[in-house]
């Protein structure tokens, strides 16, 4: 199993498209860093905050800026996850390498498990990149001071806790994006063209996002059960106080989505006729 997973990483590492997301994110971060360095942003919270507080120094630290950047980059990450994961099985079917590898002794379940591990690693690596690089880059610009949390109240947390909360948010983000990866894998085992699952996963994500934001009767009722609604709740871990009930509900909902998608993917793939 370890050997199969290593092979999957090797394959991913030889494809340029695997690095497309991180390359674009790097470029974007470089632009942001230059922008922040030249024109430091004002106090978050707007006019009301500025009217009620007298600030000495800057409330901005690498932790706060990273948290702000994460919000933007998560949206950017989604199409790249769809692209990378959608290709995992369907890409092999399209290149006909699927039949070459499935003629080998390992079972389809092991093969797909290695793909799941690759998808997990791919997603995790992107999230680590989205948190790690800004923390380092903005650390040079803003330093690692305490983190301000702006909500109904303003809270200030120490750097140790701030780092821990960002790590927690990252783990939640990985967990949430695994739903996307699982959905991508499910679509990837269904078809034999790589572009289909990538577009399909992104289309489903976008449709559920829209459904989740429509405040109408039934749609409002199902909204909390949509993974798109729960995916963005990672930010609860950098709010004060942390609503643990809501976080737990998010983790469970996302877990159920991933579980169902992966179970369906395994079931379909184990019974599928490989005719490509």
């Amino acid at each position, binding site marked *: 199993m370890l050997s199969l997973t290593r092979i999957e990483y090797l394959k991913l590492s*030889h494809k340029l498209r695997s690095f497309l997301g991180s390359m674009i994110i790097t470029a974007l971060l470089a632009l942001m860093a230059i922008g922040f360095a030249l024109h430091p942003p004002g106090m978050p919270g707007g006019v009301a905050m500025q009217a009620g507080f007298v600030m000495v120094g800057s409330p901005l630290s690498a932790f706060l800026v990273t948290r702000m950047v994460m919000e933007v980059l998560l949206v950017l990450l989604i199409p790249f996850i769809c692209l990378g994961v959608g290709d995992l099985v369907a890409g092999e079917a399209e*290149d006909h390498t699927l039949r*070459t590898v499935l003629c080998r002794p390992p079972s389809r379940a092991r093969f797909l498990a290695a793909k799941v591990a690759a998808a997990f690693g791919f997603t995790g690596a992107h999230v680590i990149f989205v948190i790690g690089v800004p923390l380092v880059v903005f650390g040079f610009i803003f330093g690692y001071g305490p983190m301000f949390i702006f909500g109904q109240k303003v809270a200030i947390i120490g750097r140790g806790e701030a780092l821990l909360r960002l790590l927690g948010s990252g783990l939640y983000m990985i967990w949430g994006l695994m739903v996307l990866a699982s959905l991508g894998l499910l679509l990837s085992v269904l078809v034999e063209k790589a572009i289909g699952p990538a577009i399909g996963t992104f289309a489903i994500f976008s449709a559920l996002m829209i459904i989740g934001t429509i405040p109408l009767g039934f749609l409002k009722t199902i909204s909390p059960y949509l993974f798109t609604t729960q995916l963005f709740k990672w930010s609860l871990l950098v709010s004060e106080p942390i609503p643990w009930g809501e976080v737990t509900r998010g983790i469970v909902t996302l877990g159920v989505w991933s579980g169902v998608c992966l179970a369906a993917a395994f079931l379909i793939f184990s019974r599928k006729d*490989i005719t490509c």
Partner: protein
Amino acid sequence: MSNDLVLCTRGLTKHFGKLRAVDHLDLEVRRGDVFGFLGPNGAGKSTTIRMIMGLIRSNEGQIEVLGHNTRRQREAAMRKVGAIVEEPAFYRFLSGRRNLEILSAMSGGAPPQRIDEVLEVVGLTSRARDKVKVYSHGMKQRLGIAQALLPGPELVILDEPTTGLDPQGMREVRELIRDLAARAQVTVFLSSHLLNEVEQVCNRVAVINQGRLLATGDVTSLVRQGSNVRVVTSEPERAALLLQRQDWIGQVQVDGDALRVSAKPEAVPELNALLVQAGHRVSELTPIRASLEDVFFQLMGESNDVKPDSNRIPEAQP
């Protein structure tokens, strides 16, 4: 399954919707065989190979490879099997050698010298570090054979292995197949359209059409069964009537002043005696050896004439 059988299918059936691609197919490949698997396009050869390799699930029947049921013990069954299923496909962005390393790791791993060996066998050593995307079709075909040989197989399944190769390459592959069977004691299951190729390298064959087995057995027996005897007598029509009444004689055709009698070459003396005893003056009795191609087309013709349910031709008698 007897220890002697390396591959055995029983009642193997596959439907694609209403189409019956493979229909109750029984095959037996013995250890050391170079087994030819023949049939026209769409006969069900590739579907059968895909079922053997576990790429396609059968609707009925069972497959045993090296004593293991492929549905229940696929991993054990495939450990000592190498295969090319249709056109070999590789990771284009990796080198030939890296592809072999990956495929070897998937079969439990092989030492680097084994990879060197198989590259040497197929003549790709000097190009092993090039990316597959720059390989010619023939080179990919060779790499396909190399990957099939990687696990030190007891059974090699080759689906049209000489497709795309130049005449020199085709000859080398044929020699390689003979070598595998003779020196390495590898059993080879060879699906091919090239009847001449099969006749040259295979000791046993199976012929299928429309998913059904038409004939199976030793190549020599099949060819002998398809052989004819040319008979020239004074009264061909009367002689034909006499011969048609004999149950040990197959078809009798009048061809001008001669007869074409479907009978084995060993039947010539008996044929002569029969005609002479009946008062015929026999001036010529010539055995005409059939080729595998003659037998193949004869079987195809018969299978297209007969009703689906009576489509079976009994195993060729040695």
